[in-house]
């Protein structure tokens, strides 16, 4: 054997510790420079450069010491960045901040996905000897049509995930570079492409795990400090119980003092205010199935391929780190919420609002009195223009973009600039490196790489320029979509995982566990699942009016009985062409978007429709085509079969 486990373990822990220390020292150096008169924009630009440098180091490091990737803990750490995309890491705290209890659905879903990966995906894939979903599907369901369908579904769903990652990178870029969000997204796209060129097509992503300790420090350390200082308990997961009760107390006080509008308030502890129970469970289902499939799409780590036992241990490490990470986001959300609510409860005059309010206001991420809070004068003018304006700020007057909450948390809670810098650096490095996963998977699958080991070898001899050109095309499309900011980061990331789940989970599950599944069934499952999920996601989001009018055919409820909709439509039809018609359409579109849903299922919970559609199509077509199917399709999986297939 070329490596020795204890030596590899020592070398890897040294390398990971070194990288974490380097990042912390780098941030400390920048903070130091800031205190000695270096302008803040330069220091912030330094954070961006440090984040990109870290990502580049991670990518370059993956070319060396690949033996270390065989260690279960290293494999488990890199699994964290496969199961929880960087976009979620940035946006989860914001989701809990703005949705209260209902925002916890995302964390539960990702955790459940991790458990599914450990229980039914990773060990069984190791048993089958498959390294990725594309390879497994190509061997288990042979045929050109399956390969093409699988490649198309993977490319589409990974593109959606790339959009979410670029949105997150764009947000951090906009904050630290002080440039517009669209420009920051494009710059992030270039950085991702550069990292892709450095990594190459088939290089391992095992070093991504090195970012997890850094991320835990960047996220956990501020929370430990706040917990210790505020409540005397240095364990955030325990201490924030106090913050929750305080938030509830402040919220009740604000309601009594008319400083909060009950129509807009989403109390932190009250369930099912932002989501119905059905939609809550739909999100959990979609993220669970999606997060379980994505690592298989991206390709399992070497440790996960060695044996079922090794795959199980690696997935267990992943689960442990994911649970640790996910339990920190509700704490960050509670502390941020408490800080903001206290700011309002203290009746802070506009002139004395903290600087972070205007920093995020200038980026368009924070509004006060319905206008971006760019400076004190504009806030005073905006509030005076409101019908009941002029008095103290109310909680509903201050609207911070949920995506920005985690980044703003250190400043909101009064921590030093270093805490923000470390979070920005770690967040950027994580988002950039995790963006490479979906990009690489999409390019590889379109090149026909990864289907089987031999094909992979031949494809990797194909000119790298072709892969790079494809990657550039993907990044360009993703940047174009991301810069339009189609919705919040957490929404886009959830849609991406939902599409992945609906398109690929039934087929992956059947390939691993159901002998009677046939090639035709697999194709039908992938197409039906993805089609239903996409029609629902795109229909309710992009064409709500048409969707609302059409939904009566399926669900029995729709536009016909909706008098308000009829009025708005009439107003639009009768409006003069020009601005009046545009405004009338906007009103109609907004109403239809709020009402367009089948059986009350919101588009974040589209897995409730897409997954059953995929499962039903797979089972029905498999049973119907069973008699005519090739005998190889019904054989159980075994390493021999896979290797023979290759």
């Amino acid at each position, binding site marked *: 054997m070329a490596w020795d486990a204890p030596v590899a373990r020592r070398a890897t822990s040294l390398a990971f510790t070194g990288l974490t220390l380097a990042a912390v020292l780098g941030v400390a150096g920048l903070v130091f420079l800031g205190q000695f008169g270096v302008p803040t924009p330069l220091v912030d630009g330094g954070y961006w450069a440090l984040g990109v440098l870290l990502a580049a180091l991670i990518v370059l490091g993956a070319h060396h010491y690949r033996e270390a990737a065989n260690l279960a803990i290293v494999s488990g750490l890199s699994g964290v960045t496969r199961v929880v995309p960087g976009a979620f890491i940035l946006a989860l705290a914001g989701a809990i901040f703005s949705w209260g*209890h209902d925002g*916890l*659905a995302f*964390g*539960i*879903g990702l*955790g*459940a996905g*991790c*458990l*599914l990966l*450990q*229980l*039914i995906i990773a*060990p069984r894939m190791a*048993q089958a000897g498959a390294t990725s979903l594309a390879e497994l599907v190509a061997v288990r369901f042979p045929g050109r049509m399956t390969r093409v369908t699988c490649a198309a579904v993977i490319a589409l769903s990974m593109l959606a995930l790339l959009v979410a990652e670029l949105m997150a990178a764009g947000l951090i870029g906009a904050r630290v570079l002080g440039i517009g969000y669209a420009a920051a997204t494009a710059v992030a796209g270039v950085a991702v492409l550069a990292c892709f060129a450095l990594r190459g097509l088939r290089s391992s992503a095992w070093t991504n795990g090195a970012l997890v300790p850094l991320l835990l420090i960047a996220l956990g350390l501020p929370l430990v400090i706040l917990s210790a200082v505020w409540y005397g308990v240095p364990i955030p*997961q*325990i201490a924030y*119980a*106090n913050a*929750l*009760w305080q938030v509830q107390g402040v919220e009740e006080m604000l309601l009594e003092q008319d400083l909060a509008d009950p129509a807009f308030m989403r109390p*932190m*502890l009250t*369930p*099912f205010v932002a989501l119905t*129970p059905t939609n*809550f*469970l739909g999100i*959990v*289902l979609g993220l*669970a199935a999606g997060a379980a499939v994505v690592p298989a799409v991206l390709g399992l780590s070497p440790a996960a391929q060695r044996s*079922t*036992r090794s795959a*199980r*241990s690696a*997935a*267990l490490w992943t*689960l*442990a780190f994911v*649970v640790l990470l*996910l*339990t920190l986001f*509700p704490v960050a959300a509670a502390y941020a919420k408490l800080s903001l609510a206290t700011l309002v409860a203290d009746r802070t005059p506009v002139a004395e609002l903290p600087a972070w309010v205007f920093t995020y206001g200038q980026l368009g991420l924070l509004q006060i009195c319905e206008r971006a809070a760019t400076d004190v004068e504009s806030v005073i003018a905006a509030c005076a223009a409101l019908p009941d304006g002029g008095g103290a700020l109310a909680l509903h007057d201050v609207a911070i973009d949920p995506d920005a909450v985690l980044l703003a948390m250190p400043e909101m809670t009064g921590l030093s600039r270093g805490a923000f810098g470390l979070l920005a650096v770690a967040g950027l490095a994580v988002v950039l490196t995790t963006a490479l996963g979906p990009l690489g998977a999409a390019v590889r699958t379109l090149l026909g790489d990864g289907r089987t080991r031999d094909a992979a070898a031949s494809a990797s001899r194909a000119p790298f320029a072709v892969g790079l050109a494809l990657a550039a095309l993907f990044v360009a499309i993703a940047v174009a979509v991301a810069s339009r900011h189609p919705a919040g980061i957490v929404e886009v990331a959830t849609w991406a995982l939902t599409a992945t789940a609906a398109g690929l989970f039934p087929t992956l599950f059947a390939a691993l*566990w159901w002998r009677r599944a046939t090639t035709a069934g697999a194709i039908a499952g992938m197409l039906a699942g993805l089609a239903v999920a996409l029609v629902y996601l795109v229909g309710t989001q992009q064409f709500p009016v048409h969707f609302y009018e059409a939904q009566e055919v399926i669900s029995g409820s729709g536009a016909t009985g909706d008098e308000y909709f009829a009025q708005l439509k009439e107003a639009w039809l009768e409006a003069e062409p020009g601005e009046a018609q545009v405004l009338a359409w906007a009103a109609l579109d907004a109403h239809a978007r709020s009402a367009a849903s089948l059986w009350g299922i919101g588009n974040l919970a589209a897995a409730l429709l897409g997954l059953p559609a995929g499962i039903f199509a797979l089972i029905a077509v498999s049973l119907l085509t069973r008699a005519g199917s090739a005998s190889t399709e019904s*054989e*159980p999986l*075994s390493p*021999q079969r896979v290797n023979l297939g290759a």
Partner: protein
Amino acid sequence: MPDQSPPESDAVGRERGARGRQVRLPIVALAAGAFLAFAVPRFVQPLNLVDVLAFPFGYYMAAQGILLGFLTIGIISARWHNRREGRDTKVS
């Protein structure tokens, strides 16, 4: 199903023996996971009436308890399967 593959070495045979026994879905673990993920969130409101570690219990479960439950299921399931595989390998 009759195995028509060529004769295997002892090591491969033992490995396949272990693998052959391990083809069943981990139904109990999956059911426990599904209960935590889908049933517990439905009962947040009544659970919130109880305080645990100073938390309203329903919120605690949604924020941490369910995730810790997943981890527990993962650990128990991994130990159980690893032990069974080890036993099967010894037997064959």
